[in-house]
């Protein structure tokens, strides 16, 4: 495909032939949305806009607007079929954040204490009309948020445990698997868990949903305050105090940074073969750009404690982004991190 010689008005050209349109813009040094290739949209975060949720955040990334509400509900241990009390509190201490520095471990995952879900079908964009089951995109986003929540160990399992301490303070020096067998009523024990329902609602969709959604999740969790709880032995239930609330201890500040690769050749045909043309890496792609790009990358970094830790790296759909480009992209992500950190304040 070549750029037509007749000069159509932008919008029409964009509609008729989006790819050449974008290509022409890029060869002139800017994207169709006027941004430079490595220029993200401004990110604004506004904390606790909701009053019924325990924590919430509204995130705007250009014309992408997502609202996240975190709500805690209580899960009594007898409601957990596979529940297994560990020994004394010491046992719980190892593996606080999603467990033993490892991923996919501990109560958070075993008991499904974190329940993120993303709703796109709010008319947030013409292709997302309600009344249909979640699209593959919505499901993929939910899964990515879910995995990252656990992998990044954002939430502390300890924050979600509800203890019953008959003899306040006094502790048995007894742990280990066998500790389970002789469970004494008087021992301190976990009676319930908080389950965090993390619901994300897209009010407006203009590309790069993951970065926006993840920022909203982090902001909402940082904003989350759960009521202080105690176990009422007589009524055998967990009672919450209206007065006292406790903030969650959120570990670090992981920030997601996504980009898409725009190929000169509209068809990915000549991949792997010499002369597959120029390509541009578009940071924070918008809706139009997403439809024109096959290869995507998302890096989640956390620079809170000095050095850059990577929490997640996802690259798929192409072969342009090799080792060097990815290394370079980490730098871009670091810059993004600083910006988002400011927005979080």
């Amino acid at each position: 495909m070549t750029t037509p010689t007749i000069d159509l008005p932008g919008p029409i050209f964009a509609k008729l032939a989006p790819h050449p349109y974008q290509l022409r813009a890029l060869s002139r040094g800017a994207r169709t949305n006027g941004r430079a290739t490595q220029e993200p949209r401004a990110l604004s975060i506004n904390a606790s806009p909701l009053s019924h949720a325990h924590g919430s955040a509204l995130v705007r990334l250009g014309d992408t607007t997502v609202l996240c509400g975190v709500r805690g509900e209580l899960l009594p241990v007898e409601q957990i079929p596979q529940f297994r009390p560990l020994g004394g509190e010491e046992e719980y201490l190892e593996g606080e954040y999603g467990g033993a520095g490892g991923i996919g471990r501990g109560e958070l995952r075993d008991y499904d204490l974190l329940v993120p879900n993303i709703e796109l079908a709010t008319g947030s964009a013409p292709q997302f009309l309600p009344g249909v089951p979640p699209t593959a995109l919505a499901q993929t986003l939910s899964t990515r948020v879910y995995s990252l929540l656990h992998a990044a160990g954002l939430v502390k399992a300890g924050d979600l445990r509800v203890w019953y301490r008959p003899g306040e303070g006094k502790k048995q020096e007894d742990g280990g698997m066998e500790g389970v067998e002789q469970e004494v009523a008087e021992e301190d024990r976990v009676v319930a868990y908080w389950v965090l329902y993390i619901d994300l609602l897209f009010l407006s969709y203009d590309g790069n949903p993951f970065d926006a959604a993840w920022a909203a999740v982090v902001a909402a969790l940082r904003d989350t305050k759960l009521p202080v709880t105690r176990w009422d032995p007589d009524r055998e239930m967990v009672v919450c105090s209206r007065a006292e609330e406790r903030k969650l201890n959120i570990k670090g500040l992981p920030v997601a940074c996504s980009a898409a690769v725009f190929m000169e050749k509209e068809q990915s045909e000549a991949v792997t073969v010499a002369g597959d043309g120029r390509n541009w890496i578009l940071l924070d792609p918008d809706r139009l750009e997403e439809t024109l790009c096959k290869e995507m990358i998302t890096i989640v970094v956390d620079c809170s404690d000095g050095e850059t830790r990577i929490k997640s790296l996802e690259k798929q759909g192409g072969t342009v982004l090799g080792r060097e480009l990815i290394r370079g992209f980490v730098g871009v992500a670091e810059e993004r991190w600083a910006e988002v950190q400011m927005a979080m304040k």
Partner: protein
Amino acid sequence: MPREAEPSLNEKQFVAQALQENLRLDGREFDQYRPLELSFGDQYGVADVTLGRTRVLAKATAEVTVPYADRPLDGVFTIATELSPMASPSFEVNRPTETEVLLSRLLEKTVRRSGALDTESLCLVAGQKCWSVRVDVHVLAHDGNLIDASCAAVVAALRHFRKPDTSMDAGVLTVYTPAEREPVPLSWLHSPFCVTWSFFGEEGDIAVLDATWLEEQVRVGSCTVSLNKHGEICQIAKLGGTPVDAVALLQCTNVALARVKEFSDMLDAKLAEDAKRRDKGGFMAELRAENDR
């Protein structure tokens, strides 16, 4: 929706005519099964059954769950049959076809309703906790007679399966991981099998066992008899099709019994053989468990 390819008129006519001459395209006798092969996976509860070019994989699993309110003393037992496009592009996920519905119903009646598995033994804490045993049936290749093959696979998988060991003391339930204690078999009451007859000819007077996909598309009717080696019939299903003489049906069930006996013996043999193979493995597991403590 890509529809299933119909065989040509010529083929249909030929199959029918050949049967009239006591001939089957693959040279089998009317009451002869294709070679049935059964193999178990590395893990407990995985059975792979092939019947000629038909292949079915069944996997049994168990997890602790909350019993149904109306049956506090029973465990949960489900058989999931979801045909994927792997069997044929004409199957779509989340779009049950008639084949799929029929299959799951027959398995339900044959295995579940016939009480092959003692569901009361799955109860852990009355009304609170019980085992949920689940068998997933995966049809990998479909060249006719899914029902018989699937049923054999399900029964084999469940007989082969081991669920985690548990203990109750001081009202506290402990479910042991395989590392802590060797898993234990299900309490199994009897092994039913399905035997499906296909009928051909105007009066459906030609009865054929283990029809191939081509034969199934030509047949005028079919009848599935489910029974165990003691000759106890769990169900008989003749869903529509050309009416068939009752006496002939009886004859069918007698032949069916013979086949089922063969299946049972074959399964027992295979299980024994597999147990021998695992014996060492089991011992290793014990050791592993020891070290863990």
